[in-house]
């Protein structure tokens, strides 16, 4: 990857992350780490009354500029979106969001950690909902 990636915008999200913090109450809480890098992301989500969209989302974490900027930008993008939208998130979507055409194999994992956490949380929530006997 090229160091041009570290534009002002990415550094700003790294140093002043939007939607950083805990969310209470929340319906979804998911966390994962990248053991190779030690990057950590935890996301908390409040689901809309219709149980089908992301009403509010926050994250906490630590790690490199790519992982933290990616998580922060993703929370901004995800807010208000249907839960189904999360399922379709791809590697290209994230690279586009970060403004990079190719992060390369070594760093793409940093960018994708936040997507992994978001999907883990939403899939878990949908899975739990599907097995609810009241449904």
């Amino acid at each position: 990857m090229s160091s041009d990636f570290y534009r002002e915008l990415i550094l700003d999200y790294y140093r002043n992350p939007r939607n950083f913090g805990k969310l209470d109450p929340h319906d979804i809480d998911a966390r994962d780490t990248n053991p190779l890098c030690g990057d950590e992301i935890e996301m908390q989500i409040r689901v809309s009354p219709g149980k089908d969209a992301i009403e509010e989302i926050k994250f906490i974490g630590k790690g490199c500029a790519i992982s933290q900027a990616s998580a922060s930008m993703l929370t901004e993008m995800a807010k208000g979106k249907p839960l189904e939208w999360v399922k379709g998130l791809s590697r290209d979507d994230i690279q586009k969001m970060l403004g990079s055409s190719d992060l390369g194999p070594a760093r793409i994992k940093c960018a994708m950690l936040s997507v992994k956490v978001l999907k883990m949380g939403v899939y878990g929530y949908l899975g739990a909902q599907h097995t609810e006997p009241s449904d």
Partner: protein
Amino acid sequence: MRKEMLESTKPVDVERVKNDFPIMSRKVNGKRLVYLDNAATTQKPKVVIDALVDYYSRYNANVHRGVHQLSIEATETYENSRKKVAKFINSPSHQEVVFTRGTTESINLVKFAWGAKFVKEGDVILITLMEHHSNMVPWQLLAKEKGARLEYAPITSDGRIDMGEFERLLGLSPSLVAFTQCSNVLGTINDAEKLCTMAKKAGATTVVDAAQSVPHMPVDVQKIGCDFLCFSGHKMLGPTGIGAVYGRKELLNSMDPFQSGGDMIKEVHLDGARWNDIPYKFEAGTTNIADAIGLGVAVEYLSVLGMENVRRHEVELLRYAFEKMSRIPNLTIYGPMDLESRGGVVSFNLADIHPHDMASILDEEGVAIRSGHHCAQPLMEHLNIPGTSRASFYVYNSTSDIDAFIGALLKAKSVFCV
């Protein structure tokens, strides 16, 4: 003594050495390769690469079994390699050198073959806070399996073992003391001889993790007085997948086998087997013949350079790097700053630049360093940092490599506006 040593030293001719390494002619991202990730693995000289090709092209055969010509040649070269490795660490006998896949397997061999037999419930196992995961997790598991207690000797603020605490913990009469001779993160060179003497006095069996010391400085197992010493070939110009554990003869003889199968037995009957002599007792199955031969050649290469010269070369690189790095504001270096008690490893952080971002920016300049927790998470927690960037030196590194490294650091500094 000291004067004699100085007189017998001859500086490493870096440009000549560099020419021995085919990889040094390649470009990375359009730039000259500046390889400073030697604590992770080292590059290979042509003689080592050729030795592998030569084995497979001319005398590939299984060892210790065949009576045919190829097998005789393979066995002889393999066993000669063991003798070279034994001599390199001044082992009293080549029978006390067991080939393994590397340091991790060497430590696991001690855990499974010695620990399983001799560590008892309620025993204390003493290690230090600066250990690599490979000299920590096996002992955590052994302690759990045996109901033993694992104690960690803390470290001082400048990254040395806290000797007062170490001594106090020895008062618990540990059955095993394991420590690194040179930290892969802090670069701290521990006085292995002193630590082993103290541990022995307390009645402990000693294990030295020498993954970062055997490649970089003279190591003499008899002088250290350790029971076991573990190291890897790939960190000392040798191939991957080969390493060794030195073990004192009487200990190796008293231990049960590590893995079992062919070559490690003397005779097998339906109701049991009799173990082979050491070191073969611990080398079950077909061993990594080619890479063991390659390691022998690597050891020869280093011996020609002279390990005292290798060490002096790294101290000079360290001195040069420290001087340049100290001029960069907001740059923190971890570990002792005293050159004589430090290996050629520099872990650092620059302002709020995360080590992975640092490594990416340096990579763009052709400079290869390591970033992260370096398999020492408890140490990172102790230092209260997520990780570090780490530059580590070897025989083919020159001051111009350090200049390139410093140039790349300054670029990272400007990219991150710090």
